[in-house]
């Protein structure tokens, strides 16, 4: 390992890193604009100049200079300070002085670094250049006069997002960052461009002129709009969620989040359930909590447990799920299901989590996607697979109808029959998987949430067996969920008990009048017309499908409004925190269930959040290890059987609208319109 001396302090650093990274290890701050940890090195802003000995007698760009043994690096000499001042002055030649009206103000790298390293007055009297603004779609607002040509956005679009649509045209003073042809970017990760931009050239369109960073309260939490469980920071002002930003977590989302995670939050302001409702004479009428509970008690008291059922939604926190489970148990009902889409998952933990972990993708050397389109199901995870592809030597195959995934994919076929052939070793791709040290088999809900899902799962199980993909040092079986609550629900055992009914069974029972009361815990993705004449209790936060059909509505809290534990698709237990309070009379979900249980005379044995969480751990030990991915128990799973010819379609037909929150979001519908416009143009 090379030994370097940074400002007189000797330090041993890993070989192959750059001078800038070495300085960071030494705790020395180097100003920079174009350099970014997760993008390729451009070396074009020249802000990171340092002096290096031995070396030429002029400052060097530290971001593009590899460290060498016995190198001496100086970051604070007069030459360096003068160089930084000079670079800063050049960068500001054409940068407008509009900080007071710029959305980046207060969190702007250029502003901060001009303060720290710049010259304290301007020597320019000439006019600044004017650059036409660009149209980059409904999420990214451009103000191209402010652009300093760091090219981070270009590199992000090309390297991470995998959409080569941004570039720099022209040269010298005429250089412009542009798509050249006016079009929105066709990526699900566009919002990250705004985070990357070190100046105010790319800012958030939905958030334009909404708030200043110093007015916002920041809460670290977890996303529930897809099953990845991206780590997020929720910025609120008063009761309102103003924006969502990514939080760094290399194990999960690195530092990216999807556009839905970031921009569906305006859905939290619309269509909210802010008070209880009871259906009287066919109409939903506003009610008090007491009246709502009374209506439920009137229906449920004396009703046999087998006639009561509960369906759990896709975004529920573990606390409310365990409360519902306990309540249903005390009512004597085995009819509980958390798999709204009917996914055939109820085996050991290893059969329903992404065992390899998101980090495992980096390690994989052959990937097979079965019935999944990760680009729409979890764009950030898809970017991770793309990253693996970019590193090379990783064949990626797909069985299903997945379209453009931003990386080339070997399309093996569409239906379960192809998987059968693959398992039998009849396809060339089998050998690629067999020869791989770390084969990764990703199974999506498109393969499992269907009639023959159990048979497809059995084939996948057979495949990992043949590939020896599950060993002590590697588990290459990975389920990519689409629902944030699903793994938590399965961990808590929210599946039909003995003699119980699953979702399909419940709906059938409703129509045959064998089920008389259904409790929907924020479950909106079922066909509510099939609920027949059953008495429907809906507890949730949005007036979506479930609430429209309900006989009693109990207003709950959305994920930003309650502390909650979520288990992501890897089986990682993460804690979401409360960023604000639910509107009106709405309450935290577990507390509603606790209150209801008392009214039904089946009081649940917990009064505080702490006690509920203790109960979680009692039900399943994995809940004790926060932020950890507890390994999944392995065993036989799936049910071998006949399959149909139907192609394995992705379970998410439309990325922008998958849940009550995103359906209520205007931004998401704008995105959808823009995307369909793009598709039409093609």
């Amino acid at each position, binding site marked *: 390992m090379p030994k370097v001396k940074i400002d007189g302090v000797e330090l041993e650093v890993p070989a192959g890193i750059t001078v800038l990274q070495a300085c960071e290890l030494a705790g020395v701050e180097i100003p920079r604009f174009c350099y970014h940890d997760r993008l390729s090195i451009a070396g074009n802003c020249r802000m990171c100049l340092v002096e290096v000995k031995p070396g030429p007698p002029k400052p060097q760009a530290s971001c593009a200079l590899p460290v060498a043994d016995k190198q001496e690096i100086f970051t604070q000499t007069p030459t360096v300070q003068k160089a930084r001042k000079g670079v800063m002055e050049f960068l500001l030649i054409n940068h407008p002085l509009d900080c007071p009206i710029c959305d980046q103000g207060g969190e702007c790298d250029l502003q901060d670094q001009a303060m720290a390293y710049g010259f304290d007055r301007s020597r320019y009297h000439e006019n600044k250049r004017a650059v036409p603004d660009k149209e980059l779609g409904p999420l990214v607002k451009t103000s191209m006069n402010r652009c300093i040509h760091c090219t981070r956005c270009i590199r992000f679009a090309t390297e991470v997002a995998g959409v080569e649509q941004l570039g720099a*045209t022209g040269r010298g003073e005429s250089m*412009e960052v542009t798509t050249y*042809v006016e079009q929105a970017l066709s990526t699900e990760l566009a919002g990250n461009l705004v985070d990357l931009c070190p100046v105010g050239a790319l800012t958030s369109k939905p958030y334009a002129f909404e708030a200043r960073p110093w007015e916002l309260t920041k809460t670290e939490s977890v996303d529930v709009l897809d099953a990845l469980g991206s780590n997020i920071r929720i910025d609120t002002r008063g009761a309102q969620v103003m924006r969502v930003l990514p939080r760094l977590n290399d194990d999960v989302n690195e530092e990216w989040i999807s556009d839905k995670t970031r921009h569906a939050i305006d859905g939290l302001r619309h269509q909210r359930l802010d008070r209880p409702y009871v259906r009287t004479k066919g109409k939903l009428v506003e009610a008090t909590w007491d009246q709502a509970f009374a209506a439920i008690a009137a229906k449920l008291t004396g009703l046999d447990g087998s006639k009561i059922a509960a369906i759990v939604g896709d975004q529920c926190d573990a606390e409310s799920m365990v409360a519902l489970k306990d309540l249903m148990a005390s009512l004597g009902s085995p009819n509980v299901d958390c798999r709204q889409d009917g996914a055939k998952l109820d085996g050991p933990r290893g059969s329903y989590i992404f065992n390899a972990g998101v980090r495992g993708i980096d390690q994989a050397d052959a990937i097979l996607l079965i019935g999944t389109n990760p680009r729409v199901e979890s764009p950030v995870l898809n970017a991770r697979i793309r990253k693996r592809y970019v590193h090379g030597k990783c064949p990626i195959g797909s069985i299903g109808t997945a379209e453009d995934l931003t990386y080339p994919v070997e399309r093996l076929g569409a239906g379960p029959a192809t998987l059968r052939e693959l398992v039998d070793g009849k396809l060339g791709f089998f050998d690629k998987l067999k020869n791989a040290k770390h084969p990764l088999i990703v199974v999506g809900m498109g393969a499992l949430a269907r009639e023959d899902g159990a048979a497809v799962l059995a084939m996948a199980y057979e495949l990992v067996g043949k590939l020896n993909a599950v060993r002590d040092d590697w588990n290459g079986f990975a389920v990519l969920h689409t629902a944030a609550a699903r793994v938590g629900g399965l961990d808590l055992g929210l599946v039909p008990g003995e003699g119980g009914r699953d979702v399909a069974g419940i709906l059938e029972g409703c129509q045959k009048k064998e089920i008389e009361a259904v409790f929907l815990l924020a479950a909106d993705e079922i066909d509510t017309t099939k609920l027949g004449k059953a008495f429907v209790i809906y507890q949730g936060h949005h007036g979506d499908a479930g609430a429209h059909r309900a006989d009693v509505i109990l207003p709950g809290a959305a994920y930003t409004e309650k502390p909650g534990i979520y288990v992501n698709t890897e089986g990682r237990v993460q804690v979401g925190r409360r960023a604000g309070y639910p509107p009106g009379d709405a309450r935290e979900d577990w507390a509603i269930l606790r209150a209801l249980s008392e009214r039904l005379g089946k009081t649940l044995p917990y009064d505080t959040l702490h006690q509920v969480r203790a109960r979680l751990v009692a039900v399943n030990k994995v809940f004790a290890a926060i932020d950890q991915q507890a390994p999944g128990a392995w065993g036989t799973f799936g049910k071998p059987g006949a399959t149909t010819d139907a192609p394995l379609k992705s379970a998410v037909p439309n990325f922008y609208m998958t849940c009550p929150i995103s359906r209520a979001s205007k931004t998401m519908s704008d995105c959808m319109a823009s995307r369909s416009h793009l598709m039409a143009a093609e």
Partner: protein
Amino acid sequence: MAMITADPKDVPQVASFSFTPEYMAKVEEQIAHYPPGRQASAVIAVLDLAQRQQGWLPRAAMNEVARLLEMAPIRVYEIATFYTMFQLRPKGKYLLQVCTTTPCWLRGSEAVMKACQHAADGETFSVQEVECLGGCVNAPVVQINDDFYEDLDEASMNKVLDALRRGETPKAGPQVDRQTSAPQGGLTTLKGE
């Protein structure tokens, strides 16, 4: 400040572009210069061929080049807008690139420019002011399509333009009595024993 590059929306674009068989053969030859998978290296040469066929570079041509070389269109736009030799607007049959850098200017490029601007009609002739063409010893210089016309003044420039207008191809090079950059009126040194 003159915008060199940006694609102005007022440019009439052509609906489609494809290489003629003759040009396609040249394109394939250019691509063959590079190992397989590295065909993108031929982009400048192929763009030049497209420009020669069309007279300028419409967006359809850039898209076609991107398709042929398996590049993202934006990467081709970047290159085409970077080099001033790629013409992103329709040009006349003859593009008069008048050098106005110091040596040519000292030797009277203003008069040459005037003659050219007078002739420019957008169909037969288009004029472009360019920086040093590297022919300073024969200043002033005008590049007409691929040829240099040198040692010009207003009269000789007009003569060249008239000849072009008549469909003739005037002799390229110095328009005065000298061979390349040898002294005017014949050799002056190394004549004796």
